[in-house]
Structures are given as C-alpha cells and as structure tokens.
C-alpha cells in the first residue's frame, strides 16, 4: 500500500515545498568564491553554459559563461536562480521509510536490503516484468544509459520507460520515419541565416528562451517569422504572420500547405526526385486539402493559409522549429511528419541557413532518448526488437540474447498496468508522474496500489510522497557526466559540490542495487561516470546516435561535440543531411502521408471548450525544483485559467474570478486570467503544480498510437463561474509563499487578500 503516510499538510510542513530565498549565509555573506565551475544549467534542453560559484562546498551564486558558444552568457530566470536548489531546507539527505508516523530516516544498508528483498519477492511471485522502472531525462547520458542496462540486466525486467515519453517521442518517431535518425537536423547557428522561420506549437520565449535571440538575429537580417499556436505568445506578438489554429488541427494545416505548394508549383522537384521517396503518395493524401477545407478544419482564414504557403514556398532559405504543441497529441507523429513534408517538398534542409529541428524540452531530452532509456530501444538509438541490434548490444554487455528482455510498455502504459495490478513494484527516479502524467487522479490510484514503491529523488516530490522507501540522490551540481542539448551537442556537466549526508548519485545507487541483486558482473566496472560513458561510446558505435569518437577531454576542448562522431579524429557533425544524404539505408528521406484525423476528444454540448496546457518561463516541468526557489515562485506562484474576454463575458468572468473547470476526468477551481491573446474557443492552464492545482486532473490518457505520447494539448472542458471561497487551500498557501518571497515575511497580513 502506498497511500500517503500523513496528511498532505503534514508532509508539506516537513518536506515542503519551502522557499529558498537567498544564497548560503544570506545576502550579506562574503560572495567571494573558493572556486568557479564551468558547467550547464540543470533545466531545459537548451543546456545553457553557466559558471557556478562555490564556497565551503556550497554553491553560492553564478557567473555568466560568456565563452560557451550556444548561449554566450545568456540565461533565463530559472538559470539565474538555479543555484538556490542547493543548500535547500527541503533537501533529502537520509534514506527514509514510510511508517505510521510518516517518513522516518533509516540506515542506508537497511534501505538497500529492504529494496532488494522486495524486488526479489515481487519478481519471485509475479515474474520479472511485474517490477518496473520509470526514469527521466534530467539525468545525464551516463545515468540514462545505466538506467536502461540496470532495468534489463540488473532487474531483468522489460518494463522500463522514461518521462521523455511525455516530451520528445513524437518528434523522435517522426524523425526516424522520415530521416532515419532522431536529432535536430542543424545546430542553432543555421537559424540566424534563414530567410523564413516557421515555429509550430512552441512558446519559444517561455520554454526555450535563448532561442528567442537566434530568431531575432535572423529577423534583424530581414527574415520573416510565422508562428502557429492557439495563443499569441510573446514571440508571436510581432511575428509577420500568426496562425492561431484550433487545438489539435496541426496536421490539417501542414496538409493544406503541402496542397498549395503543389498547386502553385513551389516544389523543389530536383531535390524531391534525387533525395526522397513517397512524394506521390504524400501529394495524393493532400489532394482534397484545399484552403477552404483547411480553413474549416483549423479555424484559420483562407487568406492567412494562402499567405503562409506563399511565404514558405517562395523562401530562399528557411528553418522550421516545432515543439510540444504539435507533439503532445494523439497524432503527434503525424503533425511532426506534416512539418517534415513541408521541409522536404521545398528541399530546404542540409544546407547553410536551411534547417529543421524539434526544440527538445527536457535537460537531456536528446541524449537521454538515445541510449536505451526507452522501452523499445537499445544504446546508439538501436531497436530492441532488431536481431542484429540485439546481437551487438549483447556482445558489448557480455550477455546472451535470452538474458536481454524484449519490448516493454511505455510510461503511461506502465502506469495503466500498475493500476490494473499487472505491475506490482516500481523504482522511480527523476520523474514526478503525479504531476506530469495525464489524468492525475488515475495516477494517484495507481501509485496507491503498488506493493512496493522505491523512489530516488533529492526532494520529496508529490509522487515520492507515495513511496514505501525514498533514497536521496544527487543534484545536477553534485555529479559529473554528459548531456546532449537540443542541438545534438554533447556537453560536459561538471561537479561543483559533494552530495550532503547519505545522498549519492543515482548511478551509484543503481550499481549497488545490481550488485546486491547478484548481477554485479555487468556493473562492477562502473566506478565513475566516465567509465559508464566509455562503455556507452562502444555501445553506441555503429548506431545512428554514434558517440564512439567523443571523449570527456574532447568535449571540454571543443565546448561540445555534435554526434554522430564515429572516431576520435572526427570533428562531429553540426549539420546533418548535407548533400541530401539521409540515414535510411538508401540514403534517401521518406515522405509519409498524414491523412487527417481528429483529436481523440473533441468539444461537444457537454464539454464545449478546448483546453490546452503548457509551461511558463518561471517553472520547469513538474516544478519539483522551481516551486522551491523564492524568486521563481514570486513571479508565478500558482496556475490560472487563461481565457479570452469574449468567452469570459459569456460566463460572467472577470480577472481573478474563480472559475470551475470540469473535464471527463476531473474538476478544479482556478482564478481567471482574462487575456486577448488566446482563441475565444480555447482556454489554457500551465501545468507545473500538483494536487488540486494540477492541470493534469483534466487531461486524458489518450496516446499517439506510434509514439505513445499522451494528448496533453487537446481536451474538452466546461466552465462555470464560482465563488472565491471555492479556491483550494493549496492556492492560498501558494499566495502566501509568493508574499514570503516578495517580502521575506512568512506570515501574510490579512489585508493583502
């Protein structure tokens, strides 16, 4: 049983979130560091370079790292304040067990023994696959690789998946289908040289802030910017063309554009004939996608659709960027392929100023999805069901094919299987599914059914609160390793400080568990992150994501190395597909038709409003880290419902009014934020919070059939004006915390309300 051991309030008092407001010793402490460590931000896929200032084994602040080429010192507010996650009152420093009195510290050995005993008990009674691992890609490449190997050879379970399943998998699947490889086609340097930039489903300014400057640099040279999003985001405000389409209609738009490119003969036939397959089929699929049809589907004016096709079709050079807006759908892969079809039809890829990329969202979203962290994948982006691929990895790992499990279940499917009782035990690391999976009431029920649940984390996340055993793991700055940024640049994360108390890096915990499970022969040689990386290099060799020629030394010397990099004398590959060479065996790219299909849930009389969700610039993913940093909480303490004044008027809602939002999954009450920048048939909620304030109370567990990504971006809801006394106690507590961050006073005077 994994129900909460204490009430939510009692847990919050003990484990937070509390706010860290100032550096160690306060603002008046001597800010002179003992050392300065060049490393990267722990948050998003931009992986900005940053220097951490260290004094007495504590991170006391930051300096911009202006020499690092990607961001040249630039940082978003999360990067500026990221150092405040260290030296934090909520930090876990001891192994803990659930008791009747809540979580109590326990001896590390006892925690290991109990974990191993429970794994063996569950696997002995219910089979190896009844124990699952859910992991995440804020982990380094080394830890991601190890998580894959640990699950397959340590636990011998097929059921390993990761939170990238909620992030980049639609892009990955689409890219592999079309190009035979899953990586941004270009380094970001090409953005600046593009004459047209097309941004689909990406709130660049808030979710990948550094990319904003790349786009503006192109615009300052005359580039045109087209933004496709149901909301007018900060970047879209001044764009040359804004297409606020109806949620869930992205592939209708890309089909409509391809239709017009063909009709107006804006096709690069030479490129299409020489370097692609399947164009005829792709055209056949869009023959009825006239501007009128596209307008009807997307809710966009015919003229806007035609203007977009004209700008895109006539561009000399271009860069297409997309992100979760189009990917978090039950046709996420189709939406990605629709974008790729637009790129391939115009032949604008693999040349200077001509590019395409998904903006990978998570810190190591790129590298963490390449080396066997996914239920269907082996290192080097190999396929776990391909006999040749299995054979190679078995040779690297020194195991037999029988020992290597097959395809497991994806993240949401694992949660479904926990709910149905098929999976009985869970090891969770770097993942807060109670906030980040859809249908959070379902997730809570599932976690409560586990026979044994062990969680590795540095803070007691909302999911960890349900665990039987919690093992304290390392913060980003407490270990070294590599990550791979959204550009495909492999970079070096450097250790700044030691882990406090009994906390230790996740890789050490996994290696120790494997040893105790009697599987040490596969893991004993992992005595450092570099030892893991060196095996990863061999395991990735010959795969599409080939790291064989990348060493720690080379990364530091070159400020990152772009894969593929097959040999040590290879310089790396910033731009893929030069000369029209793609990664399929015949060297060609594939057009894949994307016939229109609607979202899994559509609006109707009972639920007449579209709901979409996303991020704000002040928080990262499930908020486990950023909801504990004073400055960030001050800027955005709690979620809200963004609603257009026309829709607000219909419900009699004004700014700050309480509005009850109901979907087929759940119900929540939030303050209304009345803005003109969203479609009047659509509302938006940022998703970084838990419990009564979790946007994912409302979202559905509908998955893309290929990528298995949940449809976070499209749900149907109904609205009702209610009274402010219906706001949850959690909302009042967050308002109090924002006051504390602003004033330094923990008690909020009455009159502030």
């Amino acid at each position, binding site marked *: 049983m994994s129900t909460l051991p204490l009430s939510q309030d009692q847990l919050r008092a003990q484990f937070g979130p509390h706010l860290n407001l*100032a550096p160690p010793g306060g*603002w*008046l402490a001597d*800010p*002179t560091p003992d050392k300065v460590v060049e490393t990267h931000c722990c948050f998003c896929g931009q992986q900005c370079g940053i220097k951490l200032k260290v004094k007495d084994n504590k991170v006391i*602040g930051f300096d*911009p790292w*202006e020499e690092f080429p990607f961001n040249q*010192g*630039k*940082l*978003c*507010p999360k*990067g*500026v*304040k990221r150092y405040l996650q260290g030296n934090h009152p909520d930090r876990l420093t001891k192994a803990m067990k659930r008791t009747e009195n809540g979580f109590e510290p326990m001896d590390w050995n006892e925690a290991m023994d109990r974990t191993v005993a429970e794994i063996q008990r569950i696997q002995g009674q219910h089979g190896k696959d009844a124990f699952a691992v859910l992991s995440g890609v804020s982990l380094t490449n080394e830890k991601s690789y190890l998580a894959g190997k640990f699950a397959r050879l340590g636990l011998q379970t097929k059921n390993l998946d990761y939170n990238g399943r909620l992030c980049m998998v639609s892009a990955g699947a689409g890219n592999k289908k079309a190009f035979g490889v899953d990586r941004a086609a270009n380094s970001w340097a090409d953005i600046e040289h593009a004459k047209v930039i097309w941004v689909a489903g990406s709130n660049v*300014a*808030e979710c990948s*802030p*550094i990319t*904003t*400057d790349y786009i*503006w*640099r192109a*615009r*300052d040279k005359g580039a045109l910017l087209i933004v496709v999003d149901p*909301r*007018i*985001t*900060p*970047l*879209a*405000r*001044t*764009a*040359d063309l*804004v*297409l*606020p389409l109806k949620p869930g209609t992205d592939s209708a738009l890309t089909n409509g554009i391809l239709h017009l490119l063909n009709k107006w003969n804006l096709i690069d036939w030479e490129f299409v004939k020489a370097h692609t397959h399947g164009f005829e089929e792709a055209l056949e699929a869009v023959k009825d996608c006239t501007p009128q049809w596209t*307008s009807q589907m997307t*809710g*966009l*004016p*015919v003229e*806007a659709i035609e203007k977009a096709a004209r700008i895109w079709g006539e561009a000399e050079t271009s860069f297409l960027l997309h992100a979760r807006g189009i990917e978090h759908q039950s046709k996420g892969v189709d939406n990605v392929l629709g974008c790729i079809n637009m790129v391939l039809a115009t032949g604008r890829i693999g040349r200077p100023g001509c590019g395409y990329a998904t903006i990978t969202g998570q810190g190591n979203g790129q590298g963490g999805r390449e080396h066997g962290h996914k239920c269907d994948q082996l290192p080097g982006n190999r396929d776990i069901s391909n006999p040749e691929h299995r054979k190679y990895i078995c040779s690297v790992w020194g195991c037999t094919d029988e020992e290597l499990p097959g395809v497991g279940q994806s993240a949401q499917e694992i949660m479904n299987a926990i709910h149905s009782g098929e999976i009985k035990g869970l090891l969770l690391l770097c993942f807060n599914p109670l906030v980040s999976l859809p249908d959070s009431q379902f997730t809570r029920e599932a976690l409560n059914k586990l026979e044994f649940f062990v969680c590795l984390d540095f803070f007691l996340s909302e999911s960890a609160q349900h665990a039987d055993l919690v093992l304290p793991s390392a913060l980003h700055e407490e270990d070294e390793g590599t990550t791979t940024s959204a550009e495909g640049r492999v970079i070096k994360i450097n250790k700044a400080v030691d882990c406090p108390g009994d906390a230790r890096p996740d890789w050490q915990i996994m290696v120790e568990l494997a040893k105790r499970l009697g599987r040490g022969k596969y893991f004993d040689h992992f005595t450092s992150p570099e030892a893991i990386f060196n095996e990863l290099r061999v395991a990735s060799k010959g795969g599409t994501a080939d790291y064989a020629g990348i060493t720690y030394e080379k990364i530091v010397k070159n400020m990152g190395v772009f894969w593929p990099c097959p040999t040590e004398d290879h310089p790396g590959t910033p731009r893929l597909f030069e000369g029209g060479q793609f990664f399929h065996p015949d060297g060609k790219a594939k057009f894949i038709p994307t016939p229109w299909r609607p979202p899994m849930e559509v609006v109707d009389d009972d639920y007449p409003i579209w709901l979409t969700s996303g991020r704000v*610039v*002040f928080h990262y993913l499930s908020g486990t880290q950023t909801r504990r940093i004073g*400055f960030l909480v001050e*800027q955005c303490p709690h979620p809200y419902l963004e609603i*257009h*004044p*026309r829709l607000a008027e219909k419900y009699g809602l004004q*700014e700050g009014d309480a509005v009850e939002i109901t979907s087929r999954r759940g119900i929540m009450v939030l303050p209304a934020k*009345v*803005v*003109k*920048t969203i*479609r*009047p*048939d659509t509302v938006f909620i940022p998703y970084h919070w838990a419990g009564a304030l979790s946007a994912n109370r409302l979202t559905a567990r509908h998955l893309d059939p290929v990528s298995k990504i949940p449809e976070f971006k499209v749900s149907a809801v109904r609205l009702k004006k209610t009274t402010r006394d219906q706001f949850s106690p959690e909302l009042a507590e967050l308002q109090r915390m924002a006051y504390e961050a602003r004033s330094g006073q923990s008690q909020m005077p009455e009159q502030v309300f």
Partner: protein
Amino acid sequence: MVPQDYGFFIDPQRCIGCRSCVGACAECGTHRGRSMIHLDEMDRFDSPQTVPTVCMHCEDPICAQVCPSDAIKRSEDGVVHAAQKPRCIGCQNCELSCPFGVPIVFSGLEQMLKCDLCYDRTSEGHKPMCATVCPSQALLFVRKDEVANLRHNKPLRDFLIGSVRVKTKNAIMVPDPDTPLHLDAALLIDGGL
C-alpha cells in the same frame, strides 16, 4: 571607467517578460539581493508586451538636480551613480522626479540605489549583468558602431517628456512604424468566432 565606444540599447520589442534581468541584477556582489531593474507588464489584458527599465544615464540627470544633499554623481564616462552615503538622506526626491522611474530608495537602508551600468563589470571589459543574461537580448551592450549592423530598428537618446527634454547615454530602440502587431487572437481567426 566604462568604455566609451560601447553603448547600452534597450529594445522592448524583443522583451519576453522573463525577468532574468531583474533576478540577475540582484545577484551582483554589490547589490546583495536588491534588484535595480523594473520589469513591467504594460497591460496583460490587451497584450503580452513587457518593458524593462534600467537607468538611462541622463546627460543632465534630473535625479541629481533635485537631490537636496548632492548625493548623486555623474562620472566622466557618463554613468550616473547610486546616491552616496552618508550624503543620501532617503528623501525620495530622486524617486519622484526621475522621468523614467528608475531610482529606488530601499527601506531599511534609507539610501537610493540605482543601476550604475555594472561599473564593476563594465570597467573590466564585461557587459552589464542584465545585458549579459537577457535571453532575447532586449538589453544589448555592444560597440555603438555595431548596432546598425545588428539591429533593424533605430536607437533613440533624445526624449521630450512633458515639457522637459531629456538626453541620455543609454538608448531605446524604436520599432519601425510598419512592424506588425498581433494582440487579439479573435481577430486572426476565421470569422472571429
């Protein structure tokens, strides 16, 4: 001494409202948790436009003119400095009179503090902290002769505020009059719903 061939250019058009500048300003070893930057939402109902305000470093600073204790000095390189202790009496004249709303008299400190163009950084060849971290480079610190190559819009250093003419060291980038502006999604969709 701040290098004279460098300029500070503020481009609200690029601002994404992320408050990196506000957060980073407070991190400086001399500011110790106090930010000297204001970041305002213009009117979120109507627009996502946000505007950063840093000191414009006026040629003839009004804050200094109205200071009864002559605590505010402008150095030869054109930087207007925070009010000096023990002269500053915390009277807030500067706060009330600055045409850009920059100075802040911090309670508890009873002293006006303001942007000094990160004198410690700029005099050592670095950019000011805010212009270093700004993700969209709405805050730009570059050689003055580079701006025309880098930006399509034009710097303005000469303002008429009410009846007062104010000339400044820092510049505001003025958007082209034909820049598109999209503020209401209802106007961009078919039939407006």
